[in-house]
C-alpha cells in the first residue's frame, strides 16, 4: 500500500501559478483568498459528486512550471468554414494577434483583450468585471479570478445590432509539455443591442491540458445575446468553465452548448434573470464516446416576475462515457408569473456508459408555471422497427433516429452558417461513432 | 326576474361595459349578439360575479335582490347558472362528486335536506338523458380530456341538475359541430319553462335556429345599440355587423 501523505493540491496549484499580477491586482488577491478558503472540491462535494476534477488534477499534472508557449501557425483548420466573423484567438492562454482579425466597425462593437480593457479603464470593465462571477461558491471560478492569464473584452453600445458574429477560439497546444490555461471573457451588451458570439475550444498534442474558463455576460435592458459554445478538443483536456449571464428587463438570450470531446468537461452555466419580461432559452447537447465525462451544471435564477425560461439538454452516451446533468431552477419570492421549463433527455448506447441527472426545482412564489422532465433510455424500438420495415438497415435506422433526437436542440440557432456547421458535426459524429 | 340598469364595468384600466339596460322576465329567452370585443362575454362574467371585472356603475336586480352584492356562490344558489365558454378541467374530481357537492350546498342554502346517494343517482340518470351524456364520462375527472362537444354537453347536464332560474349560455356554440350543437340546444329547449329564463350570448345566428329567442339585443362598444325580435338576428346574419356599426356611427 502507498503510504504517501495526502497532498494539498490547492497549495501546490497556488505555488505553481503564482506570477506577477499584471492587472486587477486587488481583485486577484481577494479571489485568491476565496480560492484558499474554498479549496478544490473533493469527491464528497455535492456539486462535484460525479465529476472528479480535483482527483484528475492530482493524478495527471505535476504542479511545477506551467507556462508553455503554444506554436500554432494557422488557425484555419479550427475555424468555422464560410463564417464571416470577427476572429479572436487565444493560444495557451495568450492572445495571438496574428491569428486574429476584427472586421466589424468600431462604431458597432469594441473587441480587445481584457488586459488592455483593464489598462484603459473602460467604464464597462470598471463596473462589471468580477461582479457576477461565482468566486464565493465555486473554487474554479475563484481560481480563475486570481490567476487568469488573458481574456477577451466585448462591448456593444446601446441600440446597436452587430452584423458579424464574434468568434472566440481557445487553442491549446500540448505538443511539448502539459498545459495549464486560464482564460476569461467579459461581454457587456448595452440596452437594445444585439450580438452573436461563438466560442470554440480545440487542442493539439498528446500531453495533458487543464483549461479553466470564467465568463461574464451582461445583457442589459432589451438587449439580445446569442451565445454558442463548442467543445471539440481532441486532446487530453480537462476543462472547467464558469459562465454567468446577467439579464436585465426585456432582454433575450439564446445559448447553445455542444460537447463532443475531451477527458473531463465541466460546464457551470448560471443565468440570472434580474428583470421582468425576459426570455431565456438554453440548449445543450453532449455526444460522448470513449472515456469522456461531460458534466453540465445549469442554474436559472428567476429573481423578478413575468419572465420565461426554457431549457433543453440532451445527451447520447457511448463507450465508457459518463453524462452528468444538474439543472436548477430557482423562482425567488415575488418572482410571480414566472414560466420556467426544463427538460433533460438521455440515451445510453453501450453497456458501460452511465448517466447521472438531477433536475431541481426550488420555488418560493405561488403564481408560477414550472416543470421539469427527464428521461433516460434507449431508442424507441417501435420507431426503429418501423424504419427497418421500410428497408433501412439497422445501423442507418439507428443513426437516423439518433440524429433526429439530437438535432432538435439546434432549432433555436439563427445563423445559418453556424447551424449548418453544427449540424455537420453532429451528423458526422453519429455516423462515425455510434 | 332580471333587471339591469345602466351597468358599467371595466377590467384593469379598460372600460368595457358603458351602460347596459336589460330586462328579462320569467319564461323569456334573450339573445345577446355583437361583434368580437363588444362586451358580450364581459356581461356574462359580471353577472356571474367574476372578480377580475370591476363594476363602476349601475345596478342589477335579480328576483328582488341586489345581485352585485352577492358572492359568486350565492348568485348560483339564488338560481343563476353560467354555461362557460371554456369550461375548466379539475383533475381528480369526478363530475358526479362535483355535482353532488354543488347540489347539496345549494339545497342547504335553500333550507332543503341533502339528497341521499340513491335519490342523487336517480336524479342524475334522469338528467343524463336530456343531453345524451354517458355515465362513464361523468365518472371521469371533470372536463379532463373531454372533447369540445363533451365539455359543452357537460355544461348543459350540470344546468339540468341545478335547475337554475336564469341560465346564461356564454358562446355555447363555439367549437361545436352541427350534431353536438343540436344535442346541446335540444337539452336547453327541454329545460325551458314559464318559470325560468335564458340569456344566450353568441356571435353567430346559427345557434338561434335551434334555441329560438323572444328578443335579440345587439351589443356594440359596451352598449346595447339595437333590440328586436328573432328577425333581427336573421338580418344581422344577412348584412353582417358592419351595418350596425355604421348605423351607430351615423347616429
Amino acid at each position, binding site marked *: 500500500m502507498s503510504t504517501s501523505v495526502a497532498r494539498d493540491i490547492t497549495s501546490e496549484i497556488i505555488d505553481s501559478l503564482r506570477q506577477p499580477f499584471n492587472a486587477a491586482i486587488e481583485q486577484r488577491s481577494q479571489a485568491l483568498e476565496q480560492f484558499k478558503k474554498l479549496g478544490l472540491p473533493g469527491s464528497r462535494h*455535492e456539486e462535484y459528486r460525479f465529476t472528479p476534477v480535483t482527483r484528475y488534477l492530482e493524478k495527471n499534472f505535476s504542479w511545477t512550471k506551467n507556462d508553455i508557449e503554444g506554436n500554432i501557425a494557422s488557425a484555419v483548420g479550427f475555424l468555422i468554414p464560410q463564417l464571416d466573423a470577427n476572429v479572436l484567438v487565444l493560444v495557451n492562454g495568450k492572445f495571438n494577434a496574428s491569428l486574429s482579425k476584427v472586421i466589424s466597425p468600431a462604431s458597432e462593437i469594441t473587441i480587445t483583450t481584457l488586459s488592455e480593457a483593464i489598462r484603459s479603464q473602460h467604464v464597462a470593465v470598471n463596473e462589471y468585471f468580477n461582479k457576477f462571477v461565482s468566486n464565493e461558491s465555486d473554487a474554479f471560478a475563484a481560481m480563475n479570478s486570481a490567476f487568469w492569464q488573458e481574456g477577451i473584452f466585448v462591448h456593444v453600445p446601446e441600440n446597436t445590432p452587430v452584423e458579424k458574429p464574434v468568434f472566440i477560439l481557445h487553442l491549446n497546444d500540448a505538443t511539448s509539455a502539459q498545459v495549464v490555461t486560464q482564460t476569461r471573457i467579459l461581454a457587456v451588451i448595452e440596452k437594445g443591442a444585439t450580438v452573436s458570439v461563438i466560442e470554440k475550444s480545440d487542442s493539439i498534442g498528446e500531453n495533458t491540458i487543464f483549461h479553466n474558463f470564467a465568463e461574464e455576460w451582461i445583457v442589459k435592458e432589451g438587449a439580445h445575446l446569442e451565445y454558442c459554445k463548442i467543445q471539440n478538443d481532441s486532446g487530453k483536456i480537462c476543462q472547467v468553465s464558469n459562465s454567468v449571464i446577467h439579464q436585465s428587463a426585456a432582454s433575450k438570450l439564446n445559448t447553445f452548448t455542444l460537447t463532443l470531446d475531451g477527458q473531463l468537461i465541466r460546464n457551470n452555466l448560471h443565468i440570472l434573470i434580474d428583470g421582468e419580461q425576459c426570455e431565456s432559452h438554453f440548449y445543450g447537447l453532449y455526444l460522448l464516446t470513449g472515456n469522456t465525462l461531460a458534466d453540465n451544471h445549469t442554474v436559472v435564477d428567476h429573481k423578478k416576475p413575468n419572465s420565461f425560461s426554457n431549457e433543453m439538454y440532451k445527451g447520447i452516451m457511448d463507450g465508457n462515457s459518463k453524462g452528468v446533468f444538474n439543472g436548477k431552477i430557482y423562482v425567488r*419570492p*415575488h418572482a*410571480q408569473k414566472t414560466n420556467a421549463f426544463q427538460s433533460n433527455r*438521455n440515451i*445510453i448506447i*453501450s*453497456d458501460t*456508459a*452511465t*448517466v*447521472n*441527472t*438531477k*433536475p*431541481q*426545482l*426550488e*420555488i*418560493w*412564489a*405561488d*403564481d*408560477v*408555471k*414550472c*416543470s*421539469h*422532465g*427527464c*428521461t*433516460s*433510455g*434507449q431508442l424507441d424500438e417501435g420507431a426503429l422497427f418501423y424504419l427497418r420495415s421500410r428497408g433501412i438497415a439497422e445501423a442507418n435506422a439507428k443513426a437516423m433516429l439518433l440524429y433526429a433526437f439530437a438535432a432538435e436542440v439546434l432549432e433555436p440557432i439563427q445563423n445559418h452558417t453556424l447551424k449548418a456547421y453544427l449540424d455537420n458535426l453532429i451528423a458526422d459524429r453519429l455516423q462515425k461513432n455510434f | 326576474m332580471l333587471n339591469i340598469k345602466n351597468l358599467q364595468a371595466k377590467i384593469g384600466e379598460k372600460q368595457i361595459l358603458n351602460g347596459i339596460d336589460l330586462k328579462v322576465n320569467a319564461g323569456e329567452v334573450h339573445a345577446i349578439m355583437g361583434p368580437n370585443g363588444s362586451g358580450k362575454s364581459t356581461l356574462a362574467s359580471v353577472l*356571474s*360575479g367574476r*372578480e377580475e371585472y370591476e363594476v363602476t356603475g349601475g345596478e342589477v336586480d335579480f328576483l328582488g335582490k341586489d345581485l352585485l352584492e352577492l*358572492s*359568486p*356562490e350565492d348568485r*348560483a*344558489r339564488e338560481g343563476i347558472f*353560467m354555461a*362557460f365558454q371554456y*369550461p*375548466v*378541467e*379539475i*383533475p*381528480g*374530481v369526478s363530475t358526479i362528486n*362535483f355535482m353532488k*357537492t*354543488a347540489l347539496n*350546498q345549494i339545497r342547504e*342554502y335553500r333550507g332543503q335536506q341533502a339528497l341521499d346517494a340513491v335519490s342523487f343517482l336517480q336524479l342524475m340518470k334522469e338528467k343524463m338523458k336530456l343531453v345524451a351524456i354517458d355515465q362513464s364520462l361523468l365518472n371521469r*375527472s*371533470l372536463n379532463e380530456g373531454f372533447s369540445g362537444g363533451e365539455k359543452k354537453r357537460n355544461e348543459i347536464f*350540470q344546468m339540468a341538475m*341545478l335547475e337554475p332560474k336564469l341560465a346564461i349560455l356564454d358562446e355555447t356554440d363555439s367549437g361545436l359541430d352541427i350534431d353536438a350543437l343540436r344535442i346541446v340546444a335540444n337539452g336547453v329547449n327541454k329545460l325551458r319553462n314559464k318559470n325560468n329564463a335564458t340569456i344566450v350570448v353568441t356571435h353567430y345566428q346559427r345557434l338561434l335556429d335551434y334555441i329560438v329567442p323572444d328578443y335579440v339585443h345587439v351589443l356594440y362598444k359596451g352598449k346595447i345599440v339595437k333590440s328586436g325580435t328573432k328577425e333581427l338576428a336573421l338580418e344581422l346574419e344577412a348584412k353582417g355587423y358592419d351595418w350596425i356599426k355604421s348605423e351607430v356611427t351615423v347616429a
Partner: protein
Amino acid sequence: MSKGNQVLEEITSKEYEHGWTVNLETDEAPKGLNEDIVRFISAKKNEPEWLLEWRLKSFRQWQKMTEPKWPNVTYPVINYQDIIYYSAPKQKVKPNSLDEVDPELIKTFEKLGISLTEQKRLTGVAVDAVIDSVSVATTFKEKLSELGIIFCSFSEAVKEHPELVKKYLGSVVPMSDNYFAALNSAVFSDGSFCYIPKGVRCPMELSTYFRINAANTGQFERTLIVADEGSYVSYLEGCTAPMRDENQLHAAVVELYAMKGAEIKYSTVQNWYPGDKEGKGGIYNFVTKRGLCAGDHSKISWTQVETGSAITWKYPSCILKGDYSVGEFYSVAVTNNYQQADTGTKMIHIGKNTRSRIVSKGISAGKSQNSYRGQVHVMKRATNARNHSQCDSLLMGDQCGAHTFPYIDVENNSARIEHEATTSKIGEDQIFYCLQRGIDEESAVALIVNGYAKEVLNQLPMEFAVEAQKLLALTLEGSVG
C-alpha cells in the same frame, strides 16, 4: 383574492384536534443518554444479552456519527441529553386481555377514534397500540395466530420469537445506516413485529397506532415486518401527539422484508402535532423506513399521507434486489404555517426486470417549506429496469416554498427512466367554476386538493382514505391566496 386569505386565516386558526394529554402514571428513565440508559432500557424489558450487545454497539456507532445537515430544513440544535429515552405507562402486570388494560388507556384510544374492542372487529382491522414507545395492547392475536401470522409488540417478539427477530433485525436498515437509525437502534423501546408465513394472505388490515404522551419524551419505536414466500399483508400506521410548547423527537425505524413472491403494502397517515401557528412546538419526525424486495417477484408499496410534525425527514425506500421485484411510493405531504418537510423515496434497482413507480404530491401553504427528495438508482446489472416518477407541487400563498431534488443515476443502458415534475397553484378559474356552481370557497379548495391528491389517496385502505381526506381538508381548506 382577499377572501381567500380570510378563509386561510380561519382554517389555520383551527385547533389541532388531537392535542390533549392523558394523566397516565408513567415509568420513566432519567433524562439523558449514555450506556447506562441503554442498559436500563434493555433491563426494563428483560432483554436477552445479544440484544443488549446490539444496542450498545449501535450506541457506540451513534456516538461516532454526526447529525445529517443536507436536508432542506432548519431547526435549533437538539440536545440529546435533555430527552427522556424511556417512558412507559405504569402497569402492574402485563395484561392478558383487553379487560385488564388500564381504563384510562382505553379512553385514550377511544378519543383517538381507535377502539381496541369490538368496533374494530367489525371493520376487520387488527391494532397494536404504542403509547410513549411501549406497546400497550394488540387485538385479534388469536385469530391471526390460527393462520400462523405473528402480530405482536416488538418486546413480545423478542421473547417469543427470538430466532426471527435476531435474523431480521437490522437486516434492511443496518444500525449504522444513518444518525437517527443508530440512535433508534440503541434506545428503541418497543414497536410492532409482524411475520406472515409462506403462502398466507393476511385476511385483515394490520394496524399500529403511535402516540407520544409524556412530556420531554422521545419516541423511538421499531417496526419489523417479514413476509415469507408468496404471502401478502397490508399494514397501516397512524400517529398523534399532544400539543406541547417544546419540540419532541420521534426517530423510528421501519424495516420490511419481502421474500419471493411476497407483497407488503405499508400505509401511513402521519398526524403528529405540527406546532402552533407561530411555529412553536411540534414533533421532529426523523424516520428511517426501508423495504427490501429480497426475493424474485416480490413487491413493496409505500403510501404516506403526511400532514403533521414540525419537521419531517423521511424517505421510505425500496431495495429491489429480487428479479422482477416492484417498488412503489405514493405520497401526499402537506405543510402549513411553519412546518418543514423533506421527504421522498429511494428506489434502488439491483435485480433484473425490476420496476418502480413514484407519485409524490406536495402541498405547501402558510410559511412552510416542502421538499421532495428522491433517488432512482439503476445499478449495473439491473437489466430492463423501469421507473416512472411524477412529482407535483402545489403552492398556496406567496410565502411558502416548494422544492424538488430528484437524483437519477443510471448505470445500465437498457433502463427506461422517466421523471416529471410540475409546480403550480390552484387555478383561480377552477375555484370560480366551483363557486359558480354554488360551492363555497372552502369546499372548492378541499375538492380540488383532494382531486389533486387522488392518485395517492386511492392507494389507502378505505378507513384510512376517509381519515386522510378529512385531514387534508382540515389543514388546507380555503388556503388559496
